[in-house]
Every structure is written in C-alpha cells, then in structure tokens.
C-alpha cells in the first residue's frame, strides 16, 4: 500500500498543479498580455488608424519555411526589423507556421492582438490572407510576392491587402548587361522553369540588358535559351527537377555559353552543379533571392543575383501603416524604390572590372530616372 500511496500522492499533486495553473492564469496572464492590451488601447484611441507618433504593431506570419529559411521569410522579417529600427514607434513580432493548418490561427491570433498591419509571406498564404481580409475589412494586410494580377489572389479585390510585387524586368536588365560584360565567349544563356509571365519577365529583362550592352559596345553577345522578339526559349517544365536544369545547362555550356541565368527556383541548383563541373570557366547569376545566402555552397560561381526586393518592400509597407499612408492595392518593386535589385557581388566584387561596375551604376540611374526605357513592360 505504500507504493499506492505514492501514486495517489503524485496524482493529487498533478491535479493541484493543473488547478493552480488555471487559478494563477488571471494574474500572470494579465501581466503577460499587458503589452497587447496597451497596444489595443492606443489603437482604439486613434480610431484604428495609426497616425505618426502613435505606436504601431507590425506582425508577420511565416509560411512553413520558417523564419530562418534564407529566402522570402527571412528577407521579409529583415524588412520588418528594418522598419522597426527606422522608427522607434514601430514594434514588430512574428508567428511561425509549422504546418499549413497554422496559417489561419496565426493570422487570427494577430487580429485579436490588434496588429496594425499583418504581413503574410508567399503564395501558399494567398487564399487564407484573402479570406481574413474579407472577414476583417478594417485590418490592414500585406502579402509578399502575391497579387490578383499573378493569379495568387483570386476573388473580388479586397482594398485592405497590399500586394507586394516586383518589376524584375529592371534588375533583370542590369543582370543581362552584367552578364554580357562578363562573358568572354560572347554567349550567355538563360532558361525558365515553366513559361509563365512571372518567369519570362526575368528573361525578357535579361535579353534586353544584353542587347543594350551590345548597342553600347558594338558587340554581338548572343543570348541562348530565350528570344524576346519571338518569345520562344528553353524551359525545364517544372521548378523542382534539378537533373533537367543540369542537363540543359551542360548543353548551353557545350554550345559556348559562359554565363548562365536560370529562372527556375530549385532547378537552378542543377545549373549550379553543371557550372561547378565546368571547372571555373563558367559562372552564373541566381534569381529571386541572394544566392550567396540561400545556396551559399555555390556562392563562388554567382556573379550576382537578380533579386526581388522583399526586404525593402516589407519595410515600406510597414512604414506606410505607421505613418497612415497605407492604401492597399499593388506595390511594384523597382530599381528606384529598392524593390527590384541586384544582390551584392560577394566573391565577384573584385573580379568585375571597375569600368563595368561604373557602367552598371550609370545604367541603373538611367532606368531609375526613365532615360533608359526597358523595351519590355512589366506584367505585374
């Protein structure tokens, strides 16, 4: 019976602890939730619209990639933090989603915390963000790399969603100019994953950039894998099959291309393997995010990356919520607003001739002030 007494005591203790936990919930929870409470008070005082000077709470829900995904989630959180450090009235926080079933609860948790703006990341959250925006018309939302125009959002247009999109024609143009300048063989190549506007926009910009380089230098650098005039080119058919990317890249290399620009997500890793196999004579440019961060092991082959300026765009939208200028609709990232940029050159900063680097700066300011028009118009 001695042991049974032990067990009974353990059960009793467990019951007591559980009850104590519930009992103390009022006191400790009120202290724990005081931050949220004060925020809600200030939000209701200012009638929901946060003018400058009042506190702004910026909230971000990651997709299943998590906060350290070295990709759009990490870039978005960097933008949130940049907004917070630029304005002491802005505080930011995030919730991680481990599975898709977390998306809506996480958004709802932030709605009940009276966040001034809720930033969601990526197409997987398009539908839930749209539904939440519809159900909460006074709540401001922003979604990264997703818009009605690209088919990521599908319903009637909700005015309280800021859709962050990126005119990658402009930095693709710079990438093409740089590739042409770096090519020794006079041939560069690009290919896509699937033939879609969000993919071919990069390839158009790249093609335009090479042609502009040719017209400036009287060269004839050829682009393999894409022709802007005929809109015909090479596609692997998906965004996952690295082997196809490797095979296609090897074909381009055997045809003489020495700068490769894959616009195909993870298929690009296959291209990187092929470039690695070429033994230093061939280099490439990465796409969407800084390749030296997301695919760091291949960094020494990346001349640069043609990025979507996620960090700058998120920072801008959070700041717009803070200063009252938030107006929903579509944000288009450009070279001028930092929403479409070339990544730092990393290992190539010393290998790119300084003359070429200064030409790039000239071209960039030309696009920014409109004196250089990219022939392709942005589809976003």
């Amino acid at each position: 019976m001695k042991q049974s007494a032990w067990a009974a005591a353990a059960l009793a203790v467990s019951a007591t602890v559980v009850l104590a936990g519930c009992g103390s919930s009022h006191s400790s929870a009120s202290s724990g939730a005081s931050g949220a409470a004060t925020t809600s008070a200030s939000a209701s005082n200012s009638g929901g619209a946060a003018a400058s000077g009042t506190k702004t709470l910026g909230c971000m829900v990651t997709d299943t990639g998590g906060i350290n995904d070295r990709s759009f989630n990490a870039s978005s959180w960097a933008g949130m933090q940049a907004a917070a450090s630029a304005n002491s009235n802005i505080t930011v926080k995030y919730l991680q989603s481990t599975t898709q079933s977390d998306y809506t609860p996480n958004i709802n948790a932030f709605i009940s915390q009276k966040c001034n703006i809720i930033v969601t990341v990526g197409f997987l959250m398009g539908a839930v963000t749209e539904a939440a925006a519809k159900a909460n018309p006074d709540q401001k939302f922003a979604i990264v790399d997703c818009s009605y125009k690209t088919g990521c959002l599908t319903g009637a247009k909700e005015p309280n969603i800021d859709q962050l999109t990126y005119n990658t024609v402009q930095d693709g143009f710079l990438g093409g100019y740089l590739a042409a300048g770096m090519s020794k063989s006079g041939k560069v190549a690009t290919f896509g994953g699937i033939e879609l506007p969000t993919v071919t926009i990069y390839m158009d910009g790249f093609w335009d950039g090479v042609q502009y380089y040719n017209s400036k230098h009287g060269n004839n650098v050829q682009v393999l894998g894409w022709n802007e005039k005929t809109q015909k080119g090479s596609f692997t058919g998906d965004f996952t099959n690295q082997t196809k990317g490797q095979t296609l890249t090897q074909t381009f290399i055997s045809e003489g291309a020495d700068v490769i620009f894959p616009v195909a997500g993870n298929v690009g890793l296959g291209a990187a393997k092929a470039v690695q196999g070429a033994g230093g004579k061939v280099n490439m440019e990465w796409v969407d995010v800084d390749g030296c961060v997301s695919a760091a092991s291949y960094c020494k082959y990346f001349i640069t990356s043609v990025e979507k300026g996620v960090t700058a765009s998120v920072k801008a939208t959070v700041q717009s919520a803070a200063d009252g200028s938030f107006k929903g609709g579509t944000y288009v990232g450009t070279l001028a607003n930092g929403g479409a940029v070339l990544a730092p050159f990393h290992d190539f900063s010393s290998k790119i001739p300084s003359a070429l680097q200064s030409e790039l700066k000239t071209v960039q300011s030309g696009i920014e002030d409109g004196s250089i028009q990219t022939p392709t118009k942005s589809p976003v």
Partner: protein
Amino acid sequence: MSAHEPAADPPPAASPAGTATTAPKPEEPGERRSFGQLLRQSVTEGNSFTVTVLAIFAALVVGGLINAFTNTTVLHAWSNLFSDPGHAFGQAWDTATGAYVALFEGSVFNPHTVAALFQQASISAAVHDGYLSAVFGPLSETCVQATPLILAGLAVALPYQAGLFNIGGQGQFIGGAIVATFLGYAVSLPPVIHVIVCVLGGFVGGAAIGWIPGELKARTGAHEVIVTIMLNYIMAYFLSYLLAYHYLMQAPGTVNPITRAIAGNAHLPQLFGSHLRINAGFLLALACALAVWWLLSRTTVGFEFRAIGKNPNASRVAGINVERNWVLVMLIAGGLAGLAGAAVIQGTDFTLNDQSFGTYGIDAITVALLGLGRPLGVVLAGLLFGALHAGAPLMQAATSTPVDMVEVLQAVVVLMVAAPPLVRAIFRLRGGGGSLLVLAKGWNG
C-alpha cells in the same frame, strides 16, 4: 445480431478460438465494484489510463523545465542565483506557467474575452460585435485542429486492432484530398449534394490507397509497414506531379503548385456562424469514431478484425478468412485517412497544394498510440493534440515561447505513453501488463 457473440473478447492468443467461449475469463469487467475501488485499483496497478494521465503530467513538467531553462531572461536570473535566488526561481516558474496559461487560453477558454463580453451593454451587442463567438473561439479552434487528427488517428487505430500497423496515413490523406479537391472544383452540383459527393470521393480516394497495401499483404505477404511507407513517398510525388502542369490539377495562370479553390457548394458548413471555424468536419470525425467503435464491438466484421489482431493463426483455424479481413481493414482505414484529407480541404483550406498533407500522417500514429488504439481514446488524444496546436499561436504571440514547444510536449507524451515501465518507475506504480506491448504484434504480423 449474429451467430458469433460479437461483444465478447476475441480468443486469447494462446488458446484456439473454439475453446475461447468456454474458457474462464481471467478478469470479469468490474460492474459490481464501486467507482472508488476501480479508481484505486487503476492507480495502484498503473493501468493504461493512469499511465497516460501521468505521462501527460510528466510531459508538462519536462516541457516546463525545457522552456524555463532555454529562456534568456530566466538564464540571466540564474546567473544571479546566489545574490537573488528567489528571483531566479520566480522567473523560471513564471516563464513555464506563462506559456502553459497562454496555451490553455488559446485552446480552451480565455478569461480576457469573457471579461470583454461582460463589458458589453447587452447580449445582442455582444453577439453583434462578435464577443460571444470570441469566447468560444479557442474551443472552436481546438475542434478544427482535432478533426483531421481524429480521422487519421482512427485510420491507424482500426488496423492496429486487427494487428496491422498503418504508417500510410499521409499517402491515404493525399489520395482522399486529391479526389475531394478535384470533385470540389471540376464538378458543379447543388449545395448539399456537392458536399456529400466530395466527402464520399475523399473516402474512396483514401480507400484506394489503403487497399493497395492490404491487397499486397493478402496476396504476397508484403509487410504493410514497408508498403505504406513507400506509398507515402509515391503519393507525395504524385501530388507534386499533378500540381506541376496546368492540364492536370495546377490552377490556371499561376506558377505555383496549387489547385484552384473548390466551389462554395463543396465547403463543409460552419456549425456556429462565420466567426467560428468549427465545421461539420468535426461532426464527421465524431461520427466516424462512433462508427469504428460500433464496427469493432458490435459487428461480426469487427469481431473478426479483433480476432486476427490477437492471433491470426488461431483465427484461421476457427474459419475466419484472415486475408480478406486484412484487405477490408486497410480499405476502411485508408478511407478514414482520406476523409481527413477531405475534411481539411473542404473545411478549412479549400485549395490543395504540395504541402497540404502536413504532418497528419505521422501525428496520426502518435494520436492512435496515445489513444491506446481505441476509438474513444483517439477522440480524446486528438482533442488534446488539437488543443496543443490551437493554443500554440497565442502562446507564441503572448509569451514568445517558440512554437516548437508544442512538438516537444507531443513527443514527450508519446515517449512516456510508449514506455509504460518508465512512467511506472517514475511514479512508483506496481507493474501491470501494459496493453501497448501488443503493438509489437504489428511488426511481427
């Protein structure tokens, strides 16, 4: 109901089935004993239920300790232990309990929303402003999160009773989700009928994937554990393939691996208005649990399932077609997992993408394990894990506790439940035959 006596226990493993009905049972169900006696006996002998409760308690303690000793504030307080010991212990306690309180408030009942409710001028104003639904929001979320866990958990628990270990919840989930989604957007039907057609389609899609390992085991003896695991990969890649081409299931005009949204008519109806996400999927899960219980304990088929689970050889001698029952039980189990897929697509997600299956297939095993392989146990375990998931956002938002804490809790609970001797040793319970030891049969079968 039948020639057999379905409610009786299946034949014990050692004796042939024919003698089972006459053999004296070692222990009669305790109708005559008082509740107090039962409770005391269950505590002293450490039966499965007690072990489970103590396992959950132990997991909470372990989780609290991990939480307290990974928190930077607490660690800082510990560094000043000798100058201010009370502060260190207080910080550790506050951190650990704060996370659990938030978890509770996010999953069951939040006193702040109730307080807000009472500040409203009238009930009608409260209803209008959504405060009333906010009070039940946490419970609603728990039910929503529990729905696929219960359904997929049943898909593991049912074959477990028949001596099969179904690791294929993920593949069967995908099979059901694909069919339900396709019927959801490609077909146009009137309101109620569309929902039913999609749910049935989900069952059929899952059952087809569940049937494969059952048939392979019956015909060739291929082990269901290997086949179901392989099918998980096959189905995940098959889904990626379907979502890679516009002429298959990828939504038109998008680069992303995602289908079109299903029609509004195919949505599972919400039970308590648009503010609460709880939908008919939860009722479906409860109905399935009831149906599985009825099947197992009240029908000849269920009797045969349990018989082959206890001893397939003896069952065969007794005239039970073991192979046919293997196929049947895997078929039904696959259908249940397929229903989980349909419930997620039609209840909350409305589109299918290459991550829709989440971790339901693996979570289902832990739910079934925690539920001791019984339908009621699966419902309770599903609700517990559902509550952990539902409370996680508030815990993360209010106390900055990493969301991984929920997974630590789940893992420790299952570890403890799967090792009853460990729990008995910790709480000094007298040893008793742990029912979960039977699980090993699944690997031998």
